[in-house]
């Protein structure tokens, strides 16, 4: 099978940010994404709480350029005050044109 290398960007954030993050991702040029509800704890020790919901994980497969654009937005608008992490890894996909 013919595969292409693309970047998988994973963002884990407080659930409240879902719509805003999706908006930012779309704006950066991503064509699709997957959201799952997740739970966990990080360096801030506790989540914002029962009333504000759990965490979400957003997975996006994009090229490196778009991933960087999203990271810049995260760095500017989200990292300072919200519970958010993001990481990149390389993945192999078929049908590259679906993603970029």
């Amino acid at each position, binding site marked *: 099978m013919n595969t292409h290398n693309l970047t998988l960007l994973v963002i884990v954030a*407080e659930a409240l*940010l879902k719509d805003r993050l999706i908006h930012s991702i779309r704006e950066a040029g991503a064509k699709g994404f997957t959201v799952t509800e997740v739970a966990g704890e990080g360096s801030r020790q506790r989540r914002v709480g*029962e009333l504000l919901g759990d965490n979400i994980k957003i997975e996006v497969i994009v090229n490196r350029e778009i991933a960087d654009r999203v990271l810049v937005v995260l760095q500017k608008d989200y990292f*300072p*005050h919200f519970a958010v992490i993001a990481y990149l890894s390389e993945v192999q996909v078929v049908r590259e044109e679906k993603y970029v």
Partner: protein
Amino acid sequence: MVLAFAFGIVCRLIKSELAIPRDLYTSLSIYLLFALGLKGGVELSHSEWKELFLPAIATIVIGCITPISSYLTLRHLGRFSIADAAGIAAHYGSVSAVTFIATEKFVLANLGEGSVAPFMPTLLTLLEIPGIQIALAIGVLGLAKSNASKETAPGTPDSVSSRRSMGAIWHELLTARSMVLLVGGMVIGIIVGYDGFASVKPFFDKGEWMFKGALTLFLLEMGLVAGSRLSDLRRAGIFLIIFGIVMPIIHGALGVYLGSLAGLDAGSCTVLGAMAASASYIAAPPAVRMTLPEANPTFYLTAALAITFPFNLLFGIPLYFRMALAIGGT
């Protein structure tokens, strides 16, 4: 029913694994808010609009005063940061629907049927938003000013540029679950009137077993949440604890007083007082978290839920009732 709340706290204290599923909590709050709006609308369909005028003005005045008094107290007496003070003020400026329901029940039990004006749920919706808006505006403007005077160093994130527009915040508050359910229920109630309501009365009426049972379960959940916040009390500090008790008493007295000025009877004055005294925990937390992320959620959630809500439930409501009787609302 207060016992269910206390039971929830006890469950947390003995570290029971009991937890109300999040979806049930959401369902219960949808049910309670919708029932509240529906019944309010049905009552409205039979009352005079002009009776509503003065109490509505009084409510809006309360909605404008409580966030400002809370902010000033926190900022200048409590020495909280701008964001924290504004975040907490947004909660105290808004209103808690469950406190409203509990107060209404208390008054009805003491003074009997018809002792609370039928349009009170309308006032509840009026009070929900202005307080949050005013406190958020104070916070956003205050932060912008202090950032400008500090001449933000290069490299530090300029949170003002990424601040959401007031339009977006308005949209969010007006379309928030609590608002949509209350207003939507009310409109349906006005349209169907008593006759239409009769067919769903056993399910939605506040006097029926279904509503009371749902409220009891909801209070149990509130107790669980409050209980898990108790450990945060130490972090919140003594000032916030005092604030969470004294501020409601002041706001409650204001609400009772303005209610009597607006010509409300003693029962309705009590409800208005409790509304002014209560702190929101459905509409306010997400709005504050999104708009003023600098504010520490531990402060506002703990104050609203672990201090003020139980205080009002146990001591506040009877106190506002006494005030209302003493002032002898018309």
